[in-house]
């Protein structure tokens, strides 16, 4: 798992593409170009991308975009998506308001 930790690999310069303005994470409004740039900024794992850009951190919690983001990052690094470790899964698994998360029935 997570074989893409060798950060000495040269992935080249960021080269703009015509569809860079396409939205990928709809909830947080992050574009394909922003994700590709983030990889060139050194964000090589999905956890890093998520912290850097907030992809998959919005209302749908990555239900739609995590697979897309993974594909874009993998392509930028020149690896297969299966080689990237998915971002951490943690509670709450579904968007939950803080007032509810703090109201516990034990």
């Amino acid at each position, binding site marked *: 798992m997570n074989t893409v930790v060798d950060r000495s690999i040269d992935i080249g310069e960021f080269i703009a593409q015509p569809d860079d303005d396409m939205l990928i994470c709809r909830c947080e409004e992050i574009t394909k170009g922003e994700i590709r740039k983030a990889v060139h900024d050194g964000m090589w794992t999905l956890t890093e991308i998520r912290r850097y850009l907030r992809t998959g951190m919005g209302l749908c919690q990555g239900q739609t975009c995590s697979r897309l983001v993974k594909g874009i990052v993998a392509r930028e690094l020149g690896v297969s998506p299966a080689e990237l470790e998915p971002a951490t899964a943690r509670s*709450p698994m579904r968007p939950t308001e803080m007032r509810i998360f703090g109201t516990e029935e034990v």
Partner: protein
Amino acid sequence: MKRYEVIIVGAGPAGLSAAIEAAKKGLKVVVFDENDKPGGQLFKQIHKFFGSKEHHAKIRGYKIGEELLKEAGELGVEVVLNATVVGLYPDKEVNVRINDEIHHFKGDTVIIATGASENMVTFPGWTLPGVIGAGAAQTMMNIHGIRPGKKILMLGSGNVGLVVSFQLLQAGCEVVAIVDAAPRIGGYGVHASKVSRTGVPFYLSHTIKQVHGEDCVTGVTITEVDDHFAPIPDTEKFFEVDTVCMAVGLSPMSQLLKMAGCVMEDNPKRGGQVPIVDEYGETSVSGIFAAGDVSGIEEASSAMIEGKMAGVCVAEYLGYIDEEEKDSLLKVFDADLNSLRQGMFAPKNRGKLIESTEEGIEISKNLLKKGYVKDDEIERFPGVVHKSGVHPVIECTQNIPCNPCQDACKKGCISTGKNITYLPFVKDGSECINCGMCVASCSGQAIFLVNEDCGDGSATVTLPYEFFPLPEVGTVGFGLSRKGEKLCEAEVVSVKSVGAFDHTNLLTMKVPKEYAMKARFFKCS
């Protein structure tokens, strides 16, 4: 903290089946589901299922859902709805949001049956309102009674794309095209054919270039792609549509298992991130099981068997049955699952080009490219025979594990031979009484009753008809070809709708006799 012997997450086919098996052995079971209705995808499945009797074949999905719910209820399974599981921890503590509170439960065992979510592909305009998942379209139509749009383009020719396209037609939508980047149709040929004969064109080796519109979808441009999925210049085609549906695969919703510390893998053959499980669904964390799509994308029939397996395993895990009883039960489920995973569409054949049937008959290339078997190809299949008088014509041309047609005929006219995947054929010397049970029982709507020569220059074709309004006897319209093209004038001479047909109406049309083996659908003029 409330304790249960088994906590099941997800009240779909896998979860309910697991609950039933565990409850049968006396375990105290609770099922949590985040939706306000149980059944998972089953209640959206209005088509008849494939398989054999053990697999609920020829029963519509929602009926299977009702049966499972009833059985679970009778066994005392507690199904809690609007209950979102937000956390699962390695010691099998489960956090559930119910109303505006987080409740804590402890399970002696946990079965995760959370299913899958729909994949999306991106293209300019993919975020416009009107671009939706095929599953969403199905939910709108079959749960909420809302038509997703008037003119629709479907992306994806797998079974989901094909089945949902047919449902859209049933709901009164116009499906302008089914598009797939792959060079061949991914789903069952019979599903493609029933859509094709209504006149829906297929565009294989095509993808969406752009969806047009400012604040909603007004059209879509598709383009042909080469063997490497790169667009071929000057091959664009434009369609005026208000909705684009995507049926481009599913991803397991396995996050809870990852959170619980189960060893995961990214396995493209299983659809993405899945837990590593043994053959009966136990994960690397002792006492946590996975069943159904969450551990690998298949379909509802196999999910139900996987659920049963997990249910039996937790019963043994907690000492309610001994190993011997578990093994004998699992043996039966193993056989059921194995029989489902046969034929051309078996998981082991995924992505393979299969050029001939198990009987050695060449597969129709046109079926794989265009969605229908050509007139000069259909004759080579064993179910297509010529006889005097009314007789079944079975246009089943791919090996699928399915045999309701064989049981449907009380006269024993139809047989699939010794293997459930074999193509059905009409037995020599058998006598058809024109009852129509075979036509209604075929989940693929591939059986027709044909009288090739009525003696007056005409022929009759009886076809399965699942559309409203039902044409009345005497209605004159057109006989459509397998491709959905107008062939000839046709008159409705009989419409049968009886309980045993389970909502499949049998429409008999009279056509000139030269069209007896060509006309396969009726359209009002």
